[in-house]
């Protein structure tokens, strides 16, 4: 009888153990800080918009930008980690961290041509110059490692939880796992706040390879009033080899950093 029970328990546990490992290899890539991740925001909406009491001039600028970008594919998101050096690109905003300095710049496509714009402003400054600043270790200690915007950082921190920061943010736990039609398997994670806020995340795997993640974030605004956001991110690459071409400044940009002697 004991043997039957043991077999039954193992039979029930095996799928859990197998699916628990689906994110492990991605977790170790982030922990070892050796990876190249390329992703695309396939779907995102947000019911809370920055729509309150805006300046009319700003509204017009926003409308123009929105109209120009309507239907245009969103630029690819990139994360490259190589030891202490890293590169993140999210919605055109880039941050290169190299040899203890951070270089923020913007990549934009204008009339089919890719161009780069730096952060160095002021009289006589070129649009294409970048002034780096030493990595803010205190900020990293306080808030942990970031990987781009809040959404992708949250996803990466579910894959590889932030353990060193003083303010670790939301802690997700595994809620479910299973499989869908066509050999797709999934793992679900959730977080819930005391006030009724709730976040869910579903990681999709095809033959063990992470293919996409869907997230929902619901914020409780009051009795019978919530605001939700839904996002789907598709992964085009999640490999353990850092793509070194992203770990140097683009040749279009001039480094005007004043380095400590």
């Amino acid at each position: 009888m004991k043997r039957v029970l043991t077999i039954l328990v193992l039979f029930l546990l095996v799928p859990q153990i197998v699916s628990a490992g689906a994110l492990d290899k991605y977790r170790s890539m982030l922990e070892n800080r050796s990876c190249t991740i390329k992703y695309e925001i396939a779907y995102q909406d947000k019911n809370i918009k920055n729509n309150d009491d805006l300046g009319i001039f700003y509204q017009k600028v926003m409308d123009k930008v929105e109209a120009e970008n309507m239907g245009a594919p969103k630029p690819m998101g990139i994360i490259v980690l190589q030891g202490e050096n890293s590169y993140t690109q999210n919605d055109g905003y880039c941050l290169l961290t190299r040899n203890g300095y951070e270089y923020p710049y913007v990549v934009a496509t204008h009339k089919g041509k890719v161009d780069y714009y730096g952060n160095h402003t002021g009289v006589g400054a070129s649009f294409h110059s970048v002034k780096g600043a030493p990595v803010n270790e205190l900020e990293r200690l306080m808030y942990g490692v970031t990987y781009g915007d809040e959404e992708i950082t949250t996803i990466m921190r579910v894959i590889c939880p932030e353990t060193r920061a003083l303010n670790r943010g939301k802690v997700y736990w595994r809620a479910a796992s299973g499989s869908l039609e066509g050999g797709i398997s999934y793992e679900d994670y959730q977080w819930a706040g005391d006030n009724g806020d709730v976040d869910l995340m579903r990681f999709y795997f095809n033959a063990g390879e992470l293919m996409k993640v869907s997230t929902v974030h619901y914020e409780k605004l009051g009795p019978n009033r919530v605001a939700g956001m839904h996002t789907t991110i598709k992964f085009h690459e999640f490999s353990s080899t850092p793509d070194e071409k992203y770990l140097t400044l683009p040749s279009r940009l001039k480094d005007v950093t004043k380095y400590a002697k």
Partner: protein
Amino acid sequence: MLSKKTLAIAMALMLGVSFVPPKTEAGSTAMLVFSDKTRFDAAKGAEVLSELMLEKLVNSGKISFKDNVLLNSASVQQLYGEDMEFYKLINSCRATGNYNPVFESYKFNPAYANSIDLAKEGDIVEPRLLKRIGEESGVRYVLQGTIERYGTDRDDSTVSGVANAIFGLSGLFGLMGSVSTDTKTLAVTCTVRLLDTTTGKVVYSRRAMAREKIADVKVLDANVGADEMNTKMFYNVMDKVADKLAGEILADVAAHKLPAELGK
């Protein structure tokens, strides 16, 4: 043997029962009370704007509404509270541990709008609820609008400084002291949509922004005009945006850009 008279009555009764006018004939449109997704929803701007729009469209005599009243049923409120419905679904899934109803739902299908307030032309909005609204009200099309944004602007200028610089009227204004104006602007942006209740599809959509200004002129210590945004200004800007949107809808009806059932 039935008499001819009895037969005629029976025939008339049978015909009367079988002849139900199709719902897509004249009067196949209704207007939903608008929604306001801004922080200022308590100002009831959505109600004011939808009433003004309905009044303008009905008075034009060009749109065929089933009833000249705004729809604000429980189903309409449910349509506007779609996020809350999904939130309830999430919590029920958390209780069961099965999250498929959340992640494998239409919420992640790009063909569907996440909510009616974000829906663009061609998007599908909650087909189940819209079908119910159509059946309850006996219409095929519903007009709906969302107040998307309120905007403000402020412009201070001192007339004496400008006058001195351009016309050299320093003597005159020197006597009067400075004359200053403080102009405040309130703008409202609204999108209206026409939805087909049989499919939930947004078949038409227009967006407009209107603005209203008030000026407070100060001469010596006397004020002329108003220095704070007021109810009249709020009503006027709503009237202007309703005018713009109704004008566009009527022009598009005349140009046959909207379904034929809408026109009279």
